[in-house]
C-alpha cells in the first residue's frame, strides 16, 4: 500500500523481554503491520543485552540501518509500525502527529517517550554510546530468530564445524583452541584446549561432552541469554568439542528455572539434527553426535562439575573429590569434558576467525572477550561483552552509564557467591583472571552487580553467605557447618549483637573453610566475606558498635517522619502493624516499638517525608 524501506521488525522476546511485557508488544506489532499492510517479517528475537530497555522493538531497513526503540508499550509499538509506512513529507508528519494523538487518546497507558538509541555497538550511531564492547559470543543475540537455524546459517553458522570435520584433525582443532588462549568461562579459567587434550588422551574411547548451563550465581544470566537468543552457536561449539575429544554423546545440563531457554534449546537441537549438524554421520563424515538436554532441579552446587555429573546420573548433586578429574573419569566413569556455555560459544568464532584473531584480544593471560550480566545500581543494566583487559570503571561508567542521580559508586560485586566486592577505589583494575584473583574476588562466570553508597557491605556478605549456606550440599564438615557458623556471626553483626572477637573469629573461620572444603562452593564461599572485611572493615566495626552506615540492617535503623509531612495519612493506611496513627493534616509519627521496618510507609509517601536513620 505504501512505500517503505523496512526489511524486518524485531521484538525482543527473551525472558527479560517477556518479563517486561514483550508479548503484547509483539502482538501489537503484528497486528499493526497487518493493518497497515506492511508485509515484512516480524521476528521474535532473543536479547541484545539491553535488558534495562526491554521491551525492545528494532526496525531494520533495507539499507541495513537499524532503529532501536526501548521501553515500548503496545500503543507505542503500533505508532512505531505506522511511522514506518507514513511518508516523510510535511503532510505525512502532520498526519503522523494526529495519529499519534489519537493513539494516545485511545490507549490507557501513560505516554513514555520512546527514544531510539543505540542498542548495538556496531550500529552505535544514534543516541548514547553503548561503550567499548566487542561482540563475539553475543554477535547474533537479538539479531536473529533463535528458532530459525537458517538465520544462524546465513550469518556464517556451522562454517566452523564444517571446516573442522572437513579440513582439520581433532588434534588440530585442539591446537587451535589451545593457541587461541581460550580459558573456561564457567569461573575456573582452566585452559579449554588442555582439558580437551586430557579427555582425548584417555584410553577409554567412550567419551562425553557436557555443556554446563546450570548458571546458578544469583545475578548472572549470560548463559540463559545466549541460549535463548543464539542456541545454535552453543550447539556448534559442542559439536566441535565432541569432534575434538572423540565424543559421540553429549549433555546440556540446564537450570530448570530457565523454561524458555530449555524450550528454545530443544527446538534448536531438533533443527540441527534435521539439518545434519547433529546426529549420525554429520556433514557426510563418520562423525556422529547425539545431544541430550537434562534439566536441573534447583541446586546451585550442581554447577560444580562432579556434582553436575552426579545429577545427570540421577543422584544427589554432591561433589566428589578430584582427582580423578572428569576429563579422566566422568560420566559413568568415562572421560568427560565439562565446559561452560560461553566457552562453547567462543569456539565457532575461534575456528572461523583463527586463533590469532582471538588471542589478539585481551591481556597477556586472559584472551578474548567476557560477557557480563551487569546489574545493580547503574543506569543501564543488561548483558555486555567486553574485551578482556577492559577496566571495571569503563564497564560501570561508560557501558553501564554510571550511578543514579546523587548516588556514589561504592563497589562492584563480581563473581557472585564465589566472588567478592572490589571497591570503587580499585575500579581501574583490568578485567583479567589473575588481576581479579589478586583482589580476593574472582572472574567468576559473569555476574557483575554494581553497588552504591546505599548498600551495606556487611549485609551483602551476609546475603551471599546465606545463599551458600543454603546451597551447600551438606557433605563436608567445613562447608556444611563452617558456613553456618560464619553466617551466625554475620547475622549477629547485622542484628547489632556482635561481640568484639567476632571479626577475628570470622576471619579465622573463613581462612579454614577456604582451605579445607571439598569443592569450589565451600572453598570460595568465604570470598564475599573476606573481601568486604578487607576493603570495608570500617563498616563491620560500625556494626559492632550498633551502627549500619548504609542504613540497611533492620535491627540498626529507625524510620522517622520529618516535618515535610503533609498529613495525607497514606503512610498510616499502609502500615501493616498500625505503628502510625492517622492524624489528617498533621505531621505523623511512627511508634518505634511497633515498627517492623518494612518500608511500606516510606515507599508510599508522596512528600518523601519519611527518612531512615
Amino acid at each position, binding site marked *: 500500500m505504501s512505500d517503505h524501506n523496512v526489511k524486518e521488525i524485531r521484538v525482543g522476546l527473551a*525472558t*527479560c523481554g*517477556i*518479563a*517486561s511485557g514483550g508479548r503484547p508488544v509483539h502482538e501489537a506489532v503484528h497486528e499493526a503491520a497487518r493493518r497497515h499492510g506492511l508485509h515484512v517479517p516480524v521476528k521474535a528475537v532473543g536479547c541484545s543485552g539491553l*535488558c*534495562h530497555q*526491554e521491551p525492545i522493538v528494532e526496525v531494520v531497513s533495507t539499507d541495513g540501518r537499524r532503529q532501536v526503540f526501548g521501553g515500548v508499550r503496545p500503543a507505542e509499538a503500533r505508532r512505531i509500525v505506522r511511522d514506518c509506512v507514513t511518508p516523510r513529507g510535511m503532510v505525512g508528519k502532520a498526519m503522523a502527529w494526529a495519529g499519534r494523538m489519537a493513539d494516545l487518546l485511545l490507549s490507557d497507558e501513560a505516554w513514555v517517550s520512546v527514544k531510539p538509541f543505540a542498542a548495538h555497538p556496531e550500529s552505535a550511531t544514534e543516541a548514547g554510546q553503548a561503550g567499548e564492547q566487542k561482540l563475539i559470543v553475543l554477535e547474533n543475540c537479538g539479531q536473529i530468530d533463535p528458532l530459525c537455524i537458517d538465520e544462524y546459517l546465513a550469518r556464517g553458522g556451522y562454517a566452523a564445524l564444517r571446516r573442522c570435520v572437513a579440513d582439520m584433525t581433532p588434534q588440530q582443532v585442539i591446537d587451535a583452541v589451545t593457541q587461541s588462549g581460550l580459558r573456561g568461562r564457567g569461573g575456573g579459567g582452566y585452559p579449554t584446549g588442555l582439558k580437551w587434550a586430557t579427555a582425548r588422551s584417555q584410553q577409554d574411547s567412550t567419551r562425553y561432552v557436557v555443556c554446563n548451563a546450570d548458571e*546458578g*550465581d*544469583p*545475578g*548472572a*544470566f549470560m548463559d*540463559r*541469554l545466549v541460549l535463548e537468543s543464539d542456541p545454535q552457536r552453543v550447539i556448534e561449539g559442542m559439536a566441535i568439542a565432541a569432534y575434538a575429544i572423540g565424543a559421540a554423546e553429549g549433555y546440556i545440563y540446564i537450570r*530448570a*528455572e*530457565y523454561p524458555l531457554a530449555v524450550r528454545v534449546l530443544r527446538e534448536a537441537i531438533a533443527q540441527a539434527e534435521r539439518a545434519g549438524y547433529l546426529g549420525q554421520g554429520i556433514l557426510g563424515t563418520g562423525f556422529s553426535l547425539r545431544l541430550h538436554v*537434562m*534439566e*536441573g*532441579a*534447583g*541446586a*546451585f552446587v550442581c554447577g560444580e562439575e562432579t556434582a553436575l555429573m552426579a*545429577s*545427570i*546420573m*540421577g*543422584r*544427589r*548433586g*554432591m561433589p566428589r573429590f578430584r582427582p580423578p578429574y572428569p576429563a579422566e573419569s566422568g560420566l559413568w566413569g568415562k572421560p568427560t569434558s565439562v565446559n561452560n556455555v560461553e566457552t562453547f560459544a567462543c569456539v565457532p568464532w575461534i575456528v572461523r576467525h583463527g586463533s590469532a584473531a582471538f588471542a589478539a584480544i585481551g591481556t597477556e593471560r586472559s584472551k578474548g572477550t567476557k560477557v557480563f*550480566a551487569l*546489574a*545493580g*545500581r547503574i543506569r543501564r*543494566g*543488561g548483558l555486555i561483552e567486553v574485551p578482556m583487559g577492559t577496566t571495571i570503571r569503563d564497564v560501570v561508567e561508560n557501558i553501564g552509564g554510571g550511578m543514579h542521580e546523587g548516588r556514589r559508586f561504592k563497589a562492584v*560485586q563480581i563473581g*557472585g557467591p564465589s566472588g567478592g566486592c572490589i571497591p570503587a577505589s580499585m575500579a581501574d583494575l583490568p578485567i583479567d583472571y589473575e588481576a581479579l584473583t589478586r583482589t580476593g574476588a574472582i572472574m567468576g562466570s559473569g*555476574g557483575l*552487580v554494581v*553497588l552504591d553508597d546505599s*548498600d551495606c557491605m556487611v549485609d*551483602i556478605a551476609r*546475603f*551471599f553467605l546465606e*545463599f551458600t549456606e543454603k*546451597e551447600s*550440599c551438606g557433605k563436608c564438615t567445613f562447608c556444611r557447618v563452617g558456613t553456618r557458623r560464619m553466617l551466625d556471626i554475620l547475622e549477629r553483626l547485622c542484628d547489632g549483637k556482635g561481640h568484639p572477637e567476632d571479626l577475628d573469629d570470622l576471619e579465622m573461620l573463613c581462612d579454614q573453610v577456604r582451605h579445607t572444603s571439598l569443592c569450589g562452593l565451600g572453598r570460595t564461599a568465604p570470598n564475599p566475606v573476606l573481601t568486604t572485611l578487607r576493603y570495608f572493615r570500617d563498616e563491620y566495626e560500625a556494626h559492632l558498635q550498633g551502627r549500619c552506615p548504609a542504613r540497611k540492617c533492620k535491627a540498626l535503623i529507625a524510620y522517622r517522619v520529618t516535618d515535610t509531612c503533609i498529613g495525607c495519612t497514606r503512610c498510616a493506611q*499502609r502500615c*501493616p502493624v498500625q505503628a502510625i496513627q492517622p492524624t489528617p493534616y498533621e505531621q505523623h509519627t511512627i511508634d518505634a516499638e511497633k515498627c*517492623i521496618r*518494612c*518500608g*511500606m510507609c516510606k*515507599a*508510599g509517601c508522596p512528600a518523601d517525608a519519611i527518612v531512615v536513620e
Partner: protein
Amino acid sequence: MTKAKRQPVDEPIDLAAVDNIVRRTGTTADAAIPILQAIQSHFRYLPQEALEHVCRTTEITAAQIAGVSTFYSQFRHKPVGRHMVRVCHGTACHVAGAPLITEALRRHLGIDDDHEDTDADRLFTIEKVPCLGCCSLAPCMTIDDVTYGKLTPHKATMIIDKVRKESGR
C-alpha cells in the same frame, strides 16, 4: 519427615499416571530426576505413594529417590497453593529490597509460621528463588508464568489482591 507430618492426601493418587511417566522416561537409575520432574508437573508436588510406586516399578531404590527428591529445591513434598509466587532473591533484587517484598507478601497472606509457605486458603505458595534472571527489573517476582518487576512491598501486595480477585475469591 516424620510419620506424623505426612500430608493428608485429599484424593487417591492416580498411579496409572505414574506408570505412564515411567514408560515415557525409562526405568534406569539415571532417570530418577526426569521422573520426579514429570511426577511433580502432573501432581504439582510429589505424593509419597507415587514415589513408592516408582521404586516398585523401576531400578530406582527407595534410598535414591528419597535422597534425590529432598536434595533439589525444585521438588516439593507437600501440595502447593493454586498460584506459585516466586520472589527473586538474586543479588540485584536483594539490594533493591527483595527481603521486604517477601516479608510483605507473607504478612499480607498471613503466613507466619517459618516452616510454612502456603496461605491458609491454599491459594498462594510463596517461594524465594535465587535469581529469575531479570536483574534489570529488580526487585521482581513471578506469579505462575507472569513476571512483575520494579516492585515495592505495597505494589506486590496489590498484585496479590488482583490475582486473588481474578481467581474468584
